[in-house]
């Protein structure tokens, strides 16, 4: 059995994976959901939803995500990370919710897998070109089929001896080759798969397929009629859930520990550059719409950029960067010093601007480069066939920059070029003048635009909790001169925060590893729950309701008005 786990076996023919199909396969008792994504990637996953254990093979292949039929959980292409839980539309699922994936190779027109692979799928001598035969399931144990094949004379075929015991090779009287391989499906079912060493088409292909179908069917009937002893059927194998799914997750250390290489650098317009980042070794982690990553630049600067990827695009991350001629230097470095092939350090995606899907319609308002998180959101909404509209306020020299990202839903996008401040305000007023039940507003752009949109929304009667926004940066002046104490309820520590240092700095100096990102009160990554104390909010992330609530704070900029804060960490 152990030996079998390190051998490659075929589990499907390539032709078993047509467009948007999910193939139900099985090997050594373990069931697989095998599906091809729209980008051509073949996924081999354990055939069960992590939620209630239902087979994923009865779900739907949505192109880049697989959706469970039972409660609609969605899983991303490649990573099998859960991207959406309909019962919690307002929460991004934890990244640890991830199905088991198995290694996959395509060879000889078949899909092969192996639990603990040593090397690649072996070569079969003499099969540079081939025709894949119709696989024949046999109600008999692998061992029986194996013994039968080793002893059986197949009419018009001569067995060729070979060291590869898993593959039988036969020479036909006409000099062509046939190779057979047995897939041990479960205790008492095996699948006989074959290839023929000529590429055939048309009527000749049909003749070959029919000839071998009939030959292999006869072998099947002979094996089944022998009434060989049945093995004790084992229960289907199902992996245990990972420990971190059943336990409280530990705080992940905030290292920029992902290494990516720049695989594409494209100028989208005079001022906007797009970078495509590919992982060097490991699979990139699952992201959710609205997420951003930290990028470490050569001079030590760390910058945050939103991912613009659509759902399930897990083989790369995409960011779009506006080149600020007078900015802090991050965009300049990206524009001038980074080129294709460069290796960069990035963080796993953080998401503090999550796409809440508990609304009937979303109005996206994007100012300039603030479009980036909304590209990812709009793609997710489009893929789930949910209702939205996207308004992009931009300069005419940038107007074409994202047309490629809009390609599949351009009818939902309106672009406004070179509007004056007053024209923009009038337009936003006309868009927001009728608040509707269960509609939401998402806004991202320059600080002034966000403030205006919130103001206009509130004036027209929108609920504050239905207006979501993300600032690029915190333009407020941060004062650091207060002194206070913090008590950490879970870590059982008491610390002093002196003037000139932030809560976050003090936490890190004392070994409390809190994840942070922008460190200027804009992104929300470092927020913690406050159990007691009066908070002096200085961020632009929390809305006024959240600030009034006095139970959540951003540790990078906010401080205490009281002498002490008790934090829930």
């Amino acid at each position, binding site marked *: 059995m152990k030996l079998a786990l390190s051998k490659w076996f075929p589990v*499907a*023919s390539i032709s*078993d994976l*047509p*467009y*948007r*199909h999910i*193939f*139900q*396969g*099985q090997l050594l008792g373990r*069931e697989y959901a095998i599906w091809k994504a729209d980008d051509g990637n073949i996924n081999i996953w354990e055939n069960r939803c992590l939620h209630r254990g239902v087979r994923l093979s*009865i779900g*739907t*292949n*949505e*192109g880049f995500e697989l*959706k469970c*039929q039972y409660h609609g959980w969605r899983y991303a292409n490649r990573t099998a990370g859960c991207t959406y839980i309909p019962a919690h539309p307002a929460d991004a699922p934890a990244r640890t919710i991830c199905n088991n994936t198995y290694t996959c190779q395509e060879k000889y027109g078949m899909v092969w897998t192996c639990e603990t692979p040593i090397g690649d799928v072996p070569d079969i001598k003499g099969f540079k070109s081939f025709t894949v035969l*119709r*696989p024949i*399931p046999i109600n008999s144990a692998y061992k029986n089929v194996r013994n039968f094949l080793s002893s059986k004379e197949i009419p018009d075929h001569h067995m060729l001896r070979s060291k590869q015991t898993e593959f039988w090779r036969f020479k036909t009287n006409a000099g062509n080759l046939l190779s057979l391989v047995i897939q041990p*499906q479960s205790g008492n*079912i095996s*699948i006989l798969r074959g290839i023929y060493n000529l590429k055939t088409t048309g009527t000749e*292909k*049909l003749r070959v*397929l*029919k000839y071998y*179908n009939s030959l292999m*069917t006869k072998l099947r009937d002979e094996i089944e009629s022998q009434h060989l002893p049945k093995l004790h059927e084992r229960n289907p194998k199902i992996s245990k859930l990972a420990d971190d799914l059943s336990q409280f997750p530990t705080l992940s250390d905030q290292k920029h520990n992902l290494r990516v290489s720049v695989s594409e650098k494209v100028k989208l317009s005079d001022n906007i550059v797009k970078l495509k980042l590919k992982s060097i070794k490991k699979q990139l982690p699952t992201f959710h719409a609205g997420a951003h990553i930290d990028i470490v630049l050569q001079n030590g600067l760390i910058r945050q950029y939103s991912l613009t990827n659509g759902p399930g695009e897990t083989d790369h991350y995409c960011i779009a960067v506006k080149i600020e001629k007078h900015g802090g230097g991050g965009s300049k470095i990206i524009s001038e010093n980074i080129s294709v092939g460069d290796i960069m350090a990035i963080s796993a995606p953080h998401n503090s601007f999550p796409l809440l899907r508990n609304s009937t319609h979303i109005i996206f308002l994007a100012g300039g480069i603030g479009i980036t998180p909304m590209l990812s959101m709009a793609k997710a909404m489009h893929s789930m*066939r949910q209702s939205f509209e996207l308004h992009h306020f931009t300069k*005419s020299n940038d*107007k074409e920059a994202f*047309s490629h990202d*809009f*390609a*599949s*839903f*351009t*009818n939902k*996008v*309106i*672009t*406004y*070029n*070179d*509007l*004056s401040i007053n*024209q923009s305000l009038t*337009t936003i007023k006309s868009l927001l003048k009728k608040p509707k039940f269960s509609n939401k507003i998402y806004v991202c752009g320059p600080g002034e635009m966000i403030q205006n949109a919130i103001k206009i929304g509130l004036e027209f009667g929108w609920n504050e909790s239905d207006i979501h926004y993300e600032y690029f940066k915190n333009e407020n002046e941060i004062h650091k001169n207060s002194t206070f104490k913090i008590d950490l309820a879970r870590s059982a520590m008491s610390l002093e925060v002196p003037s000139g240092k932030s809560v976050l700095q003090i936490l890190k100096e004392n070994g409390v590893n809190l994840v942070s990102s922008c460190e200027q009160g804009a992104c929300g990554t470092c927020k913690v729950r406050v159990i007691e104390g009066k908070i002096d909010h200085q961020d632009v992330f929390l809305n006024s309701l959240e600030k009034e609530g006095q139970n959540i704070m951003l540790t990078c900029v906010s401080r205490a008005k009281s002498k002490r804060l008790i934090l829930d960490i």
Partner: protein
Amino acid sequence: MLKLYDYELSGNCYKVRLMMAFLKLSYDRELIEFYPSKKHKSLEFLEINPLGQLPVLMDNDFIIRDAQAILIYLAQKYDSQNNWYPSEKPSLVAEISEWLFFANDLTATSSAARLHDGFFYTNIHVEKCRKKAHDQFRIFDEHLYFNEQQGFPWICKSQYPTIADIACFPYIILSEEGGISRINYPAVRRWCDRFKRIPNFIVMSGIFPAGPQKVPDNEAKQSKILNGN
């Protein structure tokens, strides 16, 4: 007016509902409870169908019994395209008939196993039914595989689905309710996906819709651009 004597959980009734959905026909339904009250064996219903079987279709005064017969009738009378039952093509009609009988045979195997497991029909020899169903599924899978190879996505040698596809679909797709796995019939599973994507397809309890079709790129229309001064 069309009126269907119907039972939600019956695969045979579902065949007729599918046909009417594909042809966009409107109809009245009279529900005859099959389980547990066995209304299809009541004296009132026996007057409509002495065989005591569902479904029955009434087209004004004309009564048609048996699902397969109803399919032929509806397709002949209401399919203006003449694709579901192309009566002018003798070889296709012969092929369709062959598979209508196959579909009828499934009621003694796959459907019977489902009645045993789900409707407490304890006098059914379920293992025998399952074994026979597997024998039928093997043949069906081989047939569909070679049709695919020849460029025919459906049961018969036609580019369009026919009433043979409708007649076979319910008790194939419901087989797992009778403990008959389709894991070893990949061509059957692909055909099921294609069937579910026929426009106006409807579901019943235990049958799930297929995923979305590819959206053609031209569906996303021209974007709107407004310019400031």
